[in-house]
């Protein structure tokens, strides 16, 4: 067990080193969520009566800011696994596989690095949100919010690493990512209250772990409980999702990398 922790940290360290050396990517990846919060946040500002009807007093932009924080986490972590493909193509993977390091540790190290990077990106988006006038009733809430973002991204990066380990080509990987990323975001209360969704959509949304994470962050950020989901259920779903993804990713990754690429 000790050795798995050590190995995970080795890969984590390597991924972060690589991230640090590619700083230009940080800004590029911020553009999309920044557009969401600035443009979409203002386009829909007239929907205020709708969100008020579910008990939310503030402006629309404050309602959707938690959604954009999660959007940043979703996309940073779901793209994060792509270097698994490069590692297999350019030999780093074989180097790791022929060393005594455990296979699961490679996947877990990647996931934890991606999750930290996603949290960094999300914190920058929180900064942008604050700069354009979104307010926090309780600024200390930022600590549990970051905790939630890290946990959520850990689980979500598992999807990415699993897909990258299974996909044999970049094309397949990007195809799968596009198939998953946007719908998971859209089928959540990130932009629109859960109560106002048509029934059949609400049912789908309730099967989506993104939904619970958004509700959780929204509650912490604005103090308004929305969607009729108790907070402990949201927390339980989030933990369940992360544990499941850690298990699935370790298993699939180990199985896939043992096959020739």
């Amino acid at each position, binding site marked *: 067990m000790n*050795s798995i922790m*050590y*190995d995970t940290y*080795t890969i984590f*360290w*390597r991924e972060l*080193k*690589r991230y640090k*050396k*590619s700083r230009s990517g940080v800004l590029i990846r911020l553009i999309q969520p920044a557009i969401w919060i600035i443009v979409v946040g203002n386009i829909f500002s007239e929907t205020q009566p709708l969100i008020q009807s579910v008990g939310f007093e503030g402006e629309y932009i404050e309602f959707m800011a938690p959604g954009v924080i999660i959007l940043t986490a979703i996309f940073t972590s779901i793209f994060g696994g792509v270097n698994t493909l490069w590692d297999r193509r*350019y*030999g*780093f993977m*074989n*180097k*790791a*596989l*022929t*060393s*005594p*390091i455990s296979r699961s540790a490679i996947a877990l190290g990647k996931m934890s690095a991606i999750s930290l990077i996603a949290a960094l990106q999300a914190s920058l988006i929180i900064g942008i949100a604050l700069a354009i006038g979104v307010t926090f009733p309780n600024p200390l809430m930022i600590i549990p919010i970051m905790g939630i973002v890290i946990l959520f991204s850990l689980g979500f990066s598992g999807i990415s690493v699993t897909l990258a380990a299974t996909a044999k080509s970049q094309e397949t990987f990007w195809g799968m990512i596009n198939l998953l990323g946007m719908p998971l975001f859209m089928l959540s209360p990130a932009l629109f209250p859960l109560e106002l969704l048509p029934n059949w959509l609400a049912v789908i949304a309730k099967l989506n772990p993104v939904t619970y994470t958004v509700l959780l962050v929204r509650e912490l950020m604005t103090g308004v409980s929305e969607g009729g989901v108790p907070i402990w259920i949201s927390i339980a779903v989030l933990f369940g999702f992360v544990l499941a993804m850690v298990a699935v990713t370790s298993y699939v990754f180990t199985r896939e990398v043992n096959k*020739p690429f």
Partner: protein
Amino acid sequence: MPKEIELLSSIETKSLTKSFGDLVAVNDVSFSVKKGEIFGFLGPNGAGKSTTMMIFTTLLKPTSGKALIAGFDVMKDPKHVRENIGFVQQETTVDEYLTGRENLLLQSKLNHIPKNEINTRIDEVLELIELSDKQHQAVVTYSGGMRKRLDIAGGLLHHPKVLFLDEPTVGLDIQTRRKIWQYIKKIHTEFEMTIFLTTHYMEEADNLCDRIGIIDGGKIQVIDSPENMKNALGNEIISLVIENSKNHDLFLAELNKIEFIKKINDENLKLILFTSNGTEVIPKIFQISSDLGIKIVTLSLTQPTLDDVFISYTGHEIRDDKSKFNRKIEHAKMKRLRA
């Protein structure tokens, strides 16, 4: 749990076979590599060299047969195999954006080198490959030869019992290649490890290896030291080009009767005679040819090289029709893609 018995062979295989569907990449290969030996697998692209190496380094499971590396079974005990091997891949795998030292640090951690030893080990290999002064530069600024050296250094950090080098000098210019050979020899004397390498360069095999296994079409054709292989062909080679004649077969039969000639390769109108006492053989050749009315276009006398050894065992040159054929397929593919 390291074995107490002193092992005599670092690599031991028995009827090792690997097939991918219908294609048999490695076909019933059995051999052993002695402890401390530099052993080379020589063969053209697609001969099964890399597949064999991937089995030895636990990246592929054999279809059947057995392979023991440093006494551990690659199938049953891959973890112990991995602890005892260093593997330097054909393509350079160093992280470009990390510095040389950071790359070695990563490699040390991957190989579970105790924390308090990491720095001395890194200093040791950096000095060996003469990169100490460049260690804090990003690898992206290194030349191809320097990257390769760094990659090789990474395979040495944990003092493996067996070092695997897959085509260590492919794609490097001849001067850099010579330099890498020097480093490999230096490593071998300094660490006293067994080195198993694959190559398709004759010169490399000749220069580095104590013994060579010639592999072609997934099968080992011969294993011996480079000297013995060359000596087995006699110490001289006579190549002659003759004009077409109906007495061609008769000519060959007569040549075969000359006692010094050990072997004749007949490539249509180009004959290669492996022989000794070349100066005595040549007048006899002229005698026979004039008797049979065969015109000799050119004739030359040379010392055998490993190239000749390769041809004599496989019947074709190391970069032969096969690769040309592949190139044709590739070319056709590209054309179709562009259209």
